[in-house]
């Protein structure tokens, strides 16, 4: 490139800054910028606007043309959704929002309060159960989370419930014993209903930096995460680490949280996400 080339070094610096500032992460950003440099050269692109559009289209394609399914039906028994993630990411709120959405679609829903540790966790989920007008299984504080999960699936089978949503306690992926506890919850659920949980949602706070990749990697090693719900996108954080997670681990974003109310849950839309990233 020469100094008077509009698609200049300054433009690639600006691209690097917007990607890093969106929490896309250093390694992924470097890859993207290098790819774009090569393409600009190969395709003799001279207009920065054109290059940005190319990148955006490419990112949307990467996520896939069709939005991932959140139908959550199971033909032979309740569909079981397990919710996990680090502390404060929005698990309980997301569980409540999903319950509300499914109940409004006419499904029967049962919530499982498997966070038996944190202060007022059961009460908090209980209020969401009321808002969604759905049932909830809860044991007393300090009870075994596996037992709650088991009882919830068991009750759902007995009652012919369409959807089970199990909320778990926040835990750092670095805490081995807590990750083991989570694996046990999954095993127990599978034991009661082979094949369950049918969906394992990792709840990821959009303000999280590159540690999000570590979280996704460790939680998926433990549980085979099938999807991500990216929360707090109503703030100014872009949630760019979801791109690194998809590129490196292949885990799709299925839902986004855009507020604290019952309706503040949306299916993931790649085009909207990518446009917002560069806004």
């Amino acid at each position, binding site marked *: 490139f020469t100094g008077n080339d509009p698609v200049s070094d300054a433009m690639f610096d600006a691209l690097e800054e917007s990607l890093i500032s*969106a929490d896309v992460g250093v390694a992924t950003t470097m890859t993207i910028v290098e790819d774009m440099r090569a393409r600009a050269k190969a395709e003799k692109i001279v207009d920065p606007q054109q290059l940005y559009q190319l990148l955006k289209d490419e990112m949307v394609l990467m996520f896939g043309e069709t939005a991932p399914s959140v139908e959550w039906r199971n033909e032979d028994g309740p569909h079981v959704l397990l919710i996990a993630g680090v502390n404060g*990411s*929005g698990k309980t709120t997301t569980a409540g929002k999903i319950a509300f959405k499914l109940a409004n679609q006419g499904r029967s829903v049962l919530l499982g309060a498997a966070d038996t540790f944190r*202060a007022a966790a059961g009460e908090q989920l209980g209020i969401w159960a009321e808002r969604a007008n759905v049932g909830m299984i809860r044991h007393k504080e300090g009870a075994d989370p596996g037992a709650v999960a088991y009882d919830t699936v068991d009750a759902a089978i007995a009652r012919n419930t369409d959807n089970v949503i199990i909320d778990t306690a926040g835990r750092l992926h670095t805490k081995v014993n807590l990750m083991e506890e989570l694996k046990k919850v999954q095993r127990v659920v599978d034991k009661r209903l082979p094949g369950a949980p049918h969906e394992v949602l990792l709840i990821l706070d959009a303000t999280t930096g590159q540690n999000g990749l570590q979280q996704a990697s460790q939680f998926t090693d433990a549980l085979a995460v099938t999807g991500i719900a990216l929360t707090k996108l109503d*703030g100014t954080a872009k949630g760019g680490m979801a791109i690194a997670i998809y590129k490196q681990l292949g885990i799709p974003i299925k839902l986004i949280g855009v507020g604290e109310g019952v309706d503040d849950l949306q299916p993931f839309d790649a085009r909207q996400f990518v446009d917002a990233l560069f806004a």
Partner: protein
Amino acid sequence: SLAKRLDSVFKSIRGQGRLTEANMRDALQQIRTALLEADVNYQVVKKFIADVQEAAVGAKVLDSVHPGQQIVKIVHDELVTIMGEKNAPLTRSQKPPTVIMLVGLQGQGKTTSAGKLAVHLKKSGHKTLLVGADVYRPAAIKQLEIVAQQADAEMFSLGEHADPVETCLMAMGEASLRGCDTIVLDTAGRLHVDDDMMLEARQIADQLNPHEILFVANAMTGQDAVNSARQFHEALPLTGVVLTQMDGDARGGAAISLIEVTGCPVKFVGVGEKLDALEPFHPERMANQILG
């Protein structure tokens, strides 16, 4: 780690004579990458690198025998200087009660930190009143009630149909009644871009005149730390930061961003979910963690 990276940059130089401007550029690039990987904000890194470059020129690193080690020391020392070389204690009011207000985005650890502060203050003989000013989050007040019990602290709220400002105002009288010399106001998580909620926070601060307004943020926060911190700082006279979930494996570069943007020290770090998991902030240790 940064030390290893710089080592490999300078290994290729050793025996080739003097360190050059070009090698210096490589070293600065490695430092920049290390800080960005640690989630330090992009603009903050830019300024930091310029400062390191200046310090390196001043320290005549180009004439040094061990340029790699010298640069690591310059970077480490610059980080420690930014973060405030020693621990900053909590302000106490001359005339009780001391009022501490906790603010921050959703889910960062405010309510838990309120309990931790009560436990911490109890060790030096202070009696704390925890105030439930979060009327929005389901069971928030119940959560603080339980936290207060676990911390063996007093707790006050007007319930979740009350006005948060009024709750905080009434807490002042309540503290005297119950012989508490410290009040911790646990406020609702709020977005810096939510005007109504930021106005509420300002009203609480205006009416209560807290001796400490602590911004509570998660150590895994990424680039957005500067945005939220900046707007909270513009809205409220912040006096300090509490960095939570430091028991994880996040590099914690947000600490630099928060300190730079608010001009406030990190007063405490949260290192676990239990109420005894609060430690004073150690700039030296944080610098090592950030550099990986």
